[in-house]
């Protein structure tokens, strides 16, 4: 059998590259990591992801794939040990639904609370909090979204436990309110403490500086 060649084009500060890394690690897949110096996108990135020109890009035996959740499902279907997705079609549909909810509802509201000011900021903060609260219901009384152990949905949304907290610190907002959503708050803590997950995390202080700078740039410099 030919040897599998797996490469991941990523960026150290990208949560989407991180969740793909988690999937690869959980499967024990050997891969070559290539750091992109964003915004100076390499010719390789532009060639492998001409459509969206973004990281992460997974290259498996020369064939590129983009979009982190698409990549994670591909990884799960190609390397079938330690399954990430549930078996039952209905449970799979729920996992996909909630991953989409997190990306399309929690993330934009979090971003808005990060970059806006005044009334808009307050409104976004409330909305983000409510969306996180809604996400909590998807745990359905289990320790992880995947059940007793972690699965697709855990790695799809776990990054928010880091990034939302950074937003809270930098923008001085409350998103994952511990008393309002104790179950979700606990899940974030437990998930991020898992060795495989923790090992892949970028250094927090570096992320803090990076995101502070990012915010300043988005808000137009001086406040």
């Amino acid at each position, binding site marked *: 059998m030919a040897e599998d060649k797996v490469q991941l084009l990523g960026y150290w500060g990208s949560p989407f590259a991180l969740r793909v890394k988690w999937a690869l690690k959980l499967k024990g897949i050997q891969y070559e990591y290539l750091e992109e110096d964003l915004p100076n996108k390499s010719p390789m990135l532009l060639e492998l992801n*001409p*459509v969206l020109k973004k990281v992460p890009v997974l290259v*498996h035996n020369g*064939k590129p*794939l*983009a*979009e982190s959740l*698409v*990549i994670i*499902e*591909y990884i799960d*279907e*190609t390397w079938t040990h330690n399954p990430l997705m549930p078996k039952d*079609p*209905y449970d*799979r*549909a729920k996992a*996909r*639904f909630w991953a*989409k*909810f997190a990306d399309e509802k929690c993330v934009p509201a979090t971003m808005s609370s990060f970059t806006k000011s005044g009334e808009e900021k307050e409104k976004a903060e409330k909305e983000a909090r409510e969306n996180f609260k*809604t996400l909590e219901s998807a745990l359905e009384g289990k320790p992880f979204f995947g059940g007793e152990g972690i699965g697709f949905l855990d790695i799809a949304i776990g990054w928010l436990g880091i990034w939302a907290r950074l937003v809270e610190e930098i923008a001085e907002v409350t998103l994952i309110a511990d008393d309002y959503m104790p179950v979700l708050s606990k899940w974030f803590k437990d998930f991020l403490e898992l060795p495989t997950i923790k090992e892949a995390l970028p250094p927090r202080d570096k992320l803090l500086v990076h995101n502070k700078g990012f915010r300043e740039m988005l808000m137009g410099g001086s406040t």
Partner: protein
Amino acid sequence: MAHEEVKLFGMWSSPFVRIVEVALKIKGVQYEYIEEDLQNKSSQLLKYNPIHKKVPVLLHNGKPIAESLVIVEYIDETWKDNPILPQDSFERAQARFWAKFIVVKWLLSLWKACRCVENEREKAMEEASENLKILENELKDKGFLGGETIGLVEIAAKIIAYWVGVIQEVAGVEIMSRQKFPVLFKWIDELFSCNVVNESLPPKDKLAARFRSLLGSR
């Protein structure tokens, strides 16, 4: 075999509902269709999709599933005949990518451009056009989007192309034109003339009237 109860909550002018309907028809699934009045949503819809309160919602033996692409994957995994997604995992990943692109970057971006206020319109139109260029280039390069066998991507493209045509005409814009995107148009024309898709398309004038009223108040 136990009796299967399949219900689809939909709205006739939603392309996302159509995509799900075509999937059900291709699989030969018997289902009950419930037309929703979105101004006056039924208690059932609110019960089965409390989070988004939108259509389509599929109800299978009492279990609700929302979000059209999630529903289609569920349908494909539950009723195994006539696969809608490619069997090969790489092709399947490509199909997922392009299906999402078609919905978000083709339809929604163009819809946004048609609804934008004056000063944002040019930028939105440019973005919609850029997205179409991506489709055009991919088709020029590969001859197809996603996998080589007909399935979700082709169904979605055919439906979205139809809707976009109507929306453009009503809005009086021409972002997607045959001159600018000849390969895309040719591909759409040549897409399998499957009766299942064609029969599912609502009459153009009826759809146009609907969008006229949606866009009208601008």
